[in-house]
């Protein structure tokens, strides 16, 4: 278990990369730190590793306060974005390196390296140098090196970002299965929300050194607690439109929608995922709960299209199944599906609409 309390890291020059942050990560959990670049997620990971010294706050791993311990005493293993394999050592020596530092005998550490390598289907590559391996193989060697020393915690820094797109999906599935099998507490950093949703048991969404929301992928996806998380999660960004509640009705971008019961009058932000609206190319008769606009852009997503509507000053995006895409410049109407929208007031989630 990892627990962080009041963790703050301030860099010279006054930048607060991590700002009095509290977090508990459970045993065996696959935990994602997700956020845009510069949000402090890597600094947080490096603080857990001991590679950064926090300005204040405490870090506990397995109940032991390790805030002042050097990295080598924390029983953690880290896989870096560039894998950090030593170019002058072959695969066996690379995997066995942490064991060599721990003074395990040559025979035992080579046996251990071979065993770990066979688990990651690297057995045929043991005598090779890193330069003779593909990106995916290098990544598995780096993983093997982390696994071989049997640490309490794995830390992965952008584990998939150096792989090409095809290999990334394969590696993602592999990584998830490996973590299940090993059942070792794992924290990883990513800027890719899809990766975080796919891999993690729980996700912490970070922005500007703070955690905006912690939850399961489904919680974070379906009930983002503030507009930042709402905009960040999802392969297409959520529509966030200014709205106002007046006399029991919700006014958004020219549409009038029913207002959930316990919402007081006043300004709101209306959030709707582009996947949760349907596009109609003929004007729905007698309905005021639709957004009308002109088709500005149509982006091909493969099995669907992302359509951007110009509606007055606002842009509304809708995902349209293939075959139904409208022509650019045509008039179109976006019909929100009931119960799928979210309402925010003062950057806090009120309720679904």
């Amino acid at each position, binding site marked *: 278990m990892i627990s962080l309390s009041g963790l703050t890291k301030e860099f*010279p020059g006054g930048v607060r990369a991590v700002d009095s942050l509290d977090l508990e990560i459970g045993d065996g959990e696959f935990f994602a730190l997700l956020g845009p670049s510069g949000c402090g997620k890597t600094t947080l990971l490096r603080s857990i*590793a*001991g*590679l950064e010294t926090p300005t204040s706050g405490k870090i506990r791993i397995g109940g032991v306060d390790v805030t002042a311990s*050097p*990295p*080598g*005493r924390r029983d*953690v*293993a*880290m896989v*870096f*974005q*560039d894998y*950090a394999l*030593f*170019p*002058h050592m072959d695969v066996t020596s690379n995997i066995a*390196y*942490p064991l060599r*530092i*721990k003074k395990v005998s040559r025979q035992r550490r080579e046996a251990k390296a071979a065993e770990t390598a066979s688990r990651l289907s690297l057995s045929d590559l043991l005598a090779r*140098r890193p330069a003779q391996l593909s990106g995916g193989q290098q990544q598995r060697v780096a993983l093997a*090196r982390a696994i071989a*020393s049997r640490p309490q915690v794995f830390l992965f820094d952008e584990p998939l970002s150096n792989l090409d797109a095809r290999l990334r999906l394969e590696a993602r599935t592999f990584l998830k299965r490996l973590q299940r099998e090993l059942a070792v507490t794992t924290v990883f950093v990513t800027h890719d929300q899809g990766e975080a949703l796919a891999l993690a048991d729980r996700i912490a969404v970070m922005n500007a050194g703070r955690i905006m929301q912690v939850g399961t992928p489904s919680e974070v996806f379906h009930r983002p607690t503030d507009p930042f998380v709402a905009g960040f999660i999802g392969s297409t960004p959520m529509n966030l439109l200014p709205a106002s509640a007046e006399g029991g009705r919700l006014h958004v971008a020219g549409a009038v929608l029913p207002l959930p019961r316990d919402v007081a009058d006043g300004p709101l932000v209306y959030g709707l995922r582009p996947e949760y609206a349907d596009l109609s190319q003929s004007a729905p008769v007698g309905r005021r709960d639709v957004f009308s606009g002109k088709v500005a852009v149509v982006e091909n997503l493969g099995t669907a299209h992302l359509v951007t509507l110009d509606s007055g000053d606002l842009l509304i995006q809708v995902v349209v199944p293939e075959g139904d895409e409208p022509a650019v410049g045509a008039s179109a109407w976006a019909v929100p599906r009931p119960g799928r929208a979210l309402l925010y007031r003062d950057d806090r989630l009120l309720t679904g609409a």
Partner: protein
Amino acid sequence: MSQADPSGLGRARAVGFVLPGLVLIGVFLIFPALWTIYLGLTDYRLTGLAAADPQVVGVDNYTTALGDERFRNSLWLTLQYVLGSAVVGQAVLGFAIAWVLRNRPGPVKRITEGLVLLAWILPSSVIAFLWIALLDRDDGTLNALLHTPGFAWLLDYPMPSIIVFNVWRGTAFSMMLYGAALENVPPSHLETARLAGASTFQQLRDVVFPRIKGHVLTNLLLISLWTFNDFTSFQLTAGGPEGRSEILPVYIYNVALSGGRLGFGAAISFLVLLINLVFAFVYLRLLRDRRKVVVP
């Protein structure tokens, strides 16, 4: 335009461009070198009969030199000077400074580098004067600091004095070279070693040195050649007292110009040239072997 002639100049015009350079090299480098070899075979002197009519004496100069106690002593001192001030002093100290400064914030690093660099770029006559002022027996700064008035550093410890002097003067080059080399070591590699629990020594052995081996060889080659041929210490001790700091370049100067035995001096110079060539050859060999290992 053929492959062997990508610029399309043609052989004649290409030679025309290279010729002035070749002539200069011939006149100022190759001819004097050959002339030195010739002089080394004669009994040419600065003054007297042999100056007017030098005789070829064959390898006499070389046999005299190899049998000469003063020459062998000088060779031994030079070895001490190179090992002490270049290999151990400049290389180790330069690396240590570069390693310690590698992650330091701006001002500390810049001031240290500036001071070290200053010792390197000042004219040798200026720093020789500074060191004479430092080590002087009567009013020297060092004696004032240590409260040891009247202690004659340059007379009692001539070799250690010029070794320390040369370390102080030449460390900047190694520091800069290693500073640049350390930038080649990816931080994630050092961090991986730290996470495994590696000590500083283990980090250097397993991560840093394998990465900067080529830089180390180049550095050692350059500084040992420079130190081997260094004449600056002449301005401190002039080889004395009693030849106790008479390294080879100083010895050649003392013999050939002060002593007037130009032929003999030329022979020693040729020996120094041979030793330099051996140095360079060994280092280049090591460097080539290393490349073979890296690219299988």
